[in-house]
Structure formats: C-alpha cells, structure tokens
C-alpha cells in the first residue's frame, strides 16, 4: 500500500468496500464482520501492561504483520500519534473502535486499501483482527480472517490454553475470541413497531443487538448489529452458522413489514420517503441524528423503487461521510456543532442534487 493511500485526508474522499452495497441481500444487510481477539503469551494483558510493555507488544505485532505475507496489502498507522480528529475519523469509518481511539499509550492499526481488513494493536486485547464485507457474506469474511490468523500464528505465540482456547483480557471473549456481526437496515420493522419482538427472540438465543457504532451506541439510522455473545464451547463455523441462520429470518420479517407498509398505504409511505429526500436535498442546517433518520427513509425508498435517481452505495456513503469527523476532514478545518450542521447540509445538497448522483466513487 502506498503512503498516499494511507493519508487520512485521502481516505476521507473514498469509501470502503463494505459500503459498496454489493453482496447477497445488500439492500437490507449493510455489512458482515468477523473479529478475532488475540494476545501475546509472554506479556500481561493491557490493563496490567506497563508503558514499556505496551511499546514492546506494539513493536512485536507490528513487525510480525509487516514481515509476513500480509505486508503487501497492509499499511500501518501509529494511532498514538494521530490527532483526536483523525482518531475519531477512523472510528466513524469502523476501522478502529472507540475504545482504541480514546485509550492512551502505544497502539496502532494495520489497514488494507479496500478497508476490509483492520488489525488493531493494543486495544482491549493485544490484537484485534477484523474483516468486513459488503452484504451477507460471513463465509468469505471467515476464510479471510482465518487465513490472517494462521499467518500471524506462524510468527507469534498467542496466549492459548488447551481447555479454554484463546485467552483474552475479558472472560466474555475467551475460547474462540470471535465476534460475528451482521449489520442490518431495518426501517420497516421500526415503523411497524415489530423490532422489539425481533430483539426479544434474538436475546432468547443468546444473540446481542447493538447500534451502528457498537457497544452502547444507539441504533442510528435504523441500523442494527446482530452478533454472538457466546465465544466458548462452540466452534467458529458453529458460531457463524448461528448468526448466518438467523439473519435471513430477520430479512424476511423486514421484507414482510415493507410489504405491509406498501399495502396499507403506498401513498403514505411514498410521501414519507419523498419528504425525507426533500429535506435532505434542501436543508440549510441539519443535525447528525436527523440526517441518519432521513437517510434511513430514503434508503428504504430506493430499495422499494420509490426513489430512482440515486443508488444505494451513495446513500451508504452519506451515512458515514456526514459524521462529524468526516465532515471536518473533508472540509479541512475544525468545525463546532453549528458549523458542522451547516456543512452537513451543504454536503448533502451537493451530493443529492447532482445529475450524476449515482457514482459514489467520485467526489
């Protein structure tokens, strides 16, 4: 990866593979993600690691990654030396976690150009490997991450116990260290108030539901992330299957709810979607919450054929590019909330009123 590609200012104008809106069921499934938690066997976990320990852990993992066959496709960012805005930018991009951005001391992230792979060093665990794909494609994500894990295990002794599996800083991740997540866009289930029912049934089978930006975050833009809670006592393919089996059922519910909305009042739905589109195309100042809320309606409208002059990849990109740090990176200056709301409206107008509104790759 060339240095230029890892320039965050450059990244601000692009978008990751997982926003492409491709892959199976991409109208409802935004992305499929798998992450593995790993720790070096010969160092304390992060909470007990001294600053020199952290530095050495970072160096060990950094060198192992960049001396492996993965090096060709990965670039490295020293997160501890990034400014707050850049760290926030990476969080919005889902390339690092909020915890990783906000913590202290030596830490970094290795990324590939397509933003499918991210290896966080010194997060809650020494290493968090993440693979993300557009649409419902857990098998590909697993093949990729499993390979990366194997490649690194040739160079690094990960903390492993035959009885308990991979040992992690928090006992909630021990065993496989694996979290399988599928991000779903479920506006019709929210409108028809069936989402609670879905939650309850997922909880019964030990699956967690979170918002767009993970733990503790609200379900912005009607995006819900469904993931396994159990990591011990089941094999990786079993855990993937559990999530993979339940997602089509939820997709089916969402489709049925959309059908109901259309049947019970196509006019109402069309009106709702068109108004949302109208506001986004014309607002002069707009908050992040309102933007997410309206984009959600527009996204569903496009998928139902009610809006035809814009495509899903562009909308997916707008969800991310209208986040606070993205707006500031794109503008090249720091902005307070009021100025951000003006800039966000400007950005939306510019991208939604173009004749060529479909090409998300160019800005």
């Amino acid at each position: 990866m060339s240095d230029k590609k890892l320039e965050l200012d450059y990244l601000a104008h692009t978008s990751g593979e997982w926003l492409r809106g491709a892959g199976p069921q991409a109208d409802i499934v935004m992305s499929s993600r798998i992450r593995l938690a790993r720790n070096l066997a010969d160092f304390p976990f992060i909470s007990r690691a001294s600053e020199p320990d952290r530095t050495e852990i970072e160096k060990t993992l950094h060198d192992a990654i960049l001396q492996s066959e993965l090096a060709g496709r990965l670039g490295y960012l020293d997160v501890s030396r990034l400014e707050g805005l850049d760290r926030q930018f990476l969080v919005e991009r889902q390339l690092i976690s909020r915890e990783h951005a906000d913590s202290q001391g030596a830490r970094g992230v290795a990324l590939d150009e397509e933003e499918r792979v991210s290896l966080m060093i010194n997060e809650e665990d020494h290493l968090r490997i993440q693979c993300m794909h557009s649409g419902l494609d857990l098998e590909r994500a697993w093949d990729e991450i499993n390979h990366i894990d194997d490649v690194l295990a040739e160079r690094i002794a990960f903390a492993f116990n035959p009885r308990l599996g991979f040992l992690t800083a928090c006992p909630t991740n021990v065993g496989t260290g694996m979290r399988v997540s599928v991000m779903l866009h479920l506006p019709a289930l929210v409108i028809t108030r069936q989402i609670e029912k879905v939650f309850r049934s997922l909880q019964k089978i030990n699956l967690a539901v979170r918002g767009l930006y993970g733990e503790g975050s609200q379900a912005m833009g009607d995006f819900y992330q469904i993931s396994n809670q159990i990591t011990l006592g089941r094999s990786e393919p079993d855990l993937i299957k559990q999530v993979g089996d339940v997602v089509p059922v939820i997709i089916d519910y969402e489709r049925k709810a959309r059908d109901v909305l259309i049947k019970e009042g196509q006019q109402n739905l069309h009106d709702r979607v068109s108004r949302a589109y109208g506001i986004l195309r014309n607002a002069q100042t707009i908050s992040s919450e309102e933007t997410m809320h309206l984009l959600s309606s527009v996204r569903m409208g496009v998928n139902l054929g009610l809006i035809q002059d814009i495509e899903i990849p562009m909308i997916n990109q707008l969800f991310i590019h209208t986040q606070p740090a993205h707006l500031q990176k794109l503008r090249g200056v720091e902005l307070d909330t009021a100025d951000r709301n003006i800039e966000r409206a400007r950005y939306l107008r510019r991208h939604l009123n173009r004749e060529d509104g479909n090409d998300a790759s160019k800005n």
Partner: protein
Amino acid sequence: MKCQKCERPATFHITELTGGKPEELHLCEECAREYLTQSDSPDTGAANLAGALAQQLAVGQTAQELARLDQQACPVCGITFFEFRNKGRLGCPHDYVCFQKELEPLLANIHGETTHVGKRPKQNAAADTDQLTQLVRLRREMKEAIAAEDYEQASKLRDEIKQIKDAG
C-alpha cells in the same frame, strides 16, 4: 412508545448487555444522549461483568470468604481478585489458571460451556503457552530487582528470560 425516563416519544432503542443478559431501553433523544454520555465510559462493560461476577460469588459465599478471595493475587502479573472484580479485566493469561475455581462459574454463566472446542493454533496445536506466560512474571521480577538495585538478581532473571525465549 414513550420514553422510559420522561413523557416524550422514544426515538432511541438501546440494548445493553448487563451481566450477559441484554436489557432494552427506550428513550427520547435528550434522555438517550444523557444516558449514552454516562455509559460512554470504558468501564461500563467491565462494571456490568463485575456485577455479574459479584452475583455469582454472592451465592454460597460468606462475606468473609469473599474478602479472603479478593486478596488472592496472581503470582505472575500480581493482579488481585478484587481488582479483577472491580475492573472486569484480567491481568495476564495465567489468571485463567490461578483463578480457575472462581472463573469457572462465571464462564458457565456467560457461555453456557466451560471447554473450548474451536480452532487451535497450528504451530503448537496441543501445547499450552503457559511456559511463555512465565516470562510475564520474570520480566516483572526483573523490573523489581532493578528498582531495588539488586543487579545480581536482575541479571540472573535476564538469563532465565533469554533461556525461555530461545526455547520458544
């Protein structure tokens, strides 16, 4: 649906994992913001876990037993069980061995199982990395020896570290 904390309509639906059990919250924008800024602190998840653990331990443990348990420390990284209960994060891989008895019910509660059946690292398919974990202890002891200006002990420890590293 109304916000759980005030009369406004609930527009934010949050699922929190408290002690492994998800809990749903339905809040209006303002209450959601207040709630999320509170819960944004990185300790929340840990505190929840610690809560679950405390519950686990409360069953069949007297206050005295609990106090004694809390003082147990890992010989490798030095973390006490009390610190783990508070932070919800373990200090080193060896904690899984030395706090095994205490962790077992917690693992059973979180995962419903206590034995790994998934992937094993190819290199040392059956091997434990316990030996390497001793490096954590040796490094800590070396640091302490240097701080105490016991350079003879420090150099002995350094050699021991090298030996294990070379063997691995």
